[in-house]
């Protein structure tokens, strides 16, 4: 296990290095001069050159790269060009929106998918199963931002139950903030529930065919105990893996839905920062998101190797 772990760790570090260099290179070639954007079109060449020097933009590619990564490694934050505050603080303040949004979306996804997945598996090929599967197909085909718009149309425009968008802030109005996240979280959750329902169903179907389930039934256990105690626990392993990956993706992938609901989350921050060429913010967020995905993959690999020792031999 130790050899496998060290091999995986080296790959992880190498991959993170490659990710960081890619992120940096991509943003290095991004057209648009941040200094010009800050000072406007009437800026004099002297003031532009001074600001570029101040921002470190006059240095070489590697000079800028090592300056950036060096600060991150020792835990120092960069300064946002537009917001004039440390990027870490900015990210934390936006995570206060995106984090709960992603968590609530996953809660919706789990509440919907697990019961329906189990139900579909227990009634395989019967009418209920076919209906559930048909709904999951619809869920997979629906763009989440369209579902968001439809929810706004119905609950905000027609019924007036929710605001059509915006976020009051946790300190100003906690209940209002929670309410503001409900519709977008539901839109994100329903789409993810479609994937999880299908996965729960197929995983349950496989487990229900296992010998130990037959043994449990032969012992005379109630069907409910067999399904919920013996089968479900094992069927949930692949489901949990995908849920972990989905949560990671949600932190990065809620950009569109945050735009639909005008939420000041991480996705919207990075989207507007790209437009404003606030490179320190974009760089750190993209690296953070990519690192999260790479790290989750690493943990999943390790967990699998722990569960199934054969993987280590490869």
């Amino acid at each position: 296990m130790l050899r496998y772990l060290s091999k995986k760790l080296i790959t992880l570090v190498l991959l993170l290095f490659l990710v960081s260099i890619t992120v940096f290179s991509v943003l290095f070639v991004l057209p648009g001069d941040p200094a010009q954007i800050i000072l406007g079109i009437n800026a004099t060449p002297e003031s532009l050159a001074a600001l570029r020097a101040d921002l470190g933009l006059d240095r070489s590619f590697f000079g800028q790269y090592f300056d950036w990564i060096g600060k991150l490694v020792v835990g120092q934050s960069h300064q946002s060009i537009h917001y004039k505050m440390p990027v870490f603080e900015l990210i934390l303040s936006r995570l206060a929106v995106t984090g709960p949004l992603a968590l609530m979306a996953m809660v919706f996804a789990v509440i919907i998918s697990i019961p329906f997945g189990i139900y579909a598996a227990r009634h395989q090929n019967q009418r209920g199963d076919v209906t559930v599967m048909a709904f999951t197909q619809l869920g997979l085909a629906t763009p989440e931002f369209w579902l968001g718009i439809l929810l706004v149309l119905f609950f905000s425009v027609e019924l007036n139950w929710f605001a059509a968008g915006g976020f009051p802030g946790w300190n100003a109005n906690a209940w209002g903030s929670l309410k503001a996240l409900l519709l977008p979280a539901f839109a994100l959750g329903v789409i993810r529930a479609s994937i999880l329902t299908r996965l729960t169903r197929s995983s349950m179907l496989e487990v229900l065919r296992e010998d130990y389930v037959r043994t449990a039934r032969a012992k005379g256990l109630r069907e409910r105990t067999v399904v919920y105690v013996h089968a479900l626990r094992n069927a949930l392993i692949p489901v949990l893996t995908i849920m972990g990956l989905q949560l990671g993706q949600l932190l990065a992938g809620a950009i569109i839905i945050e735009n639909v609901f005008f939420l000041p989350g991480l996705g919207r921050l990075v989207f507007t920062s790209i437009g404003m060429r606030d490179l320190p913010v974009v760089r750190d967020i993209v690296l953070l998101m990519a690192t999260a995905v790479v790290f989750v993959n690493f943990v999943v690999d390790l967990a699998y190797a722990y569960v199934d020792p054969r993987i280590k031999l490869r």
Partner: protein
Amino acid sequence: MKRFFHNKNFTVGFVLSLVVVIAAAVSLLWTPYDANRMNARDRLQGPSWQHPLGTDQYGRDTLSRVMTGSVNSIIVGLVTVAIGLTLGVGLGLISAYFGRLADEAIMRFADLLFGFPAVLTAILITSILGPSMVNAMLAIGIFYIPVFARLTRAVAMVVWEREFIAAARACGISELGITWRHVLPNILSPLLIQGTIQFAVAILAEAGLSYLGLGTQPPHASWGRMLNEAQTFMDTNPWMAIFPGLAIAWSVLGFNLLGDGLRDTLDPKMVRVR
């Protein structure tokens, strides 16, 4: 062909996709109105006999724009899958054949691409290259390269171990000849299945980018862009937000089911698991 139509998923998917393809083909020759023609008198109308799907804020006919938008979506699907297939299959075949260092390098490259959040990177790419339909297709297509590379590698590795490959070698056929004549035909089914599914994903992705203003640019019709514009006028004309979204869901559902149907029919091993 008959066995395909015995499969419900395939049949429904085929019909739904066919409608999209026909709508696109017809729109190239005829639409009820010019899709870009503005008409101030008919602004923000609901469905009527004159405009079955209503009109937008410029008085443009929504049906005509939804029809024209389908051409857009089909082109995006085709081009992105073509990018993924040409580069991905090539890399996958190299990876499966040479193994070792080439395999390791290509698979780590795939890992690297998978590491990046797709939506975010697509936004970055379109910001660098400039927002347009072509650049949106490039941004989506790049993410298909590792998908097809991994799939090709996995299935080609199995094919290379088969006996008929050894027989072909014994006949003196060159390695390139074996790849072209024996390996490729044997990995076509999984590629076709994956291609159909990625086609649907591309429609969704392009709609998302266009919604953010990074895909197809006005005045050209794009379903994602239409939804973006609809959001501003939800109070006055909610219909604007219904039909373009319905068109996206319709075509994605069609191509998804088509992919599922193809998998059920071409790869029966999968049926048992599902």
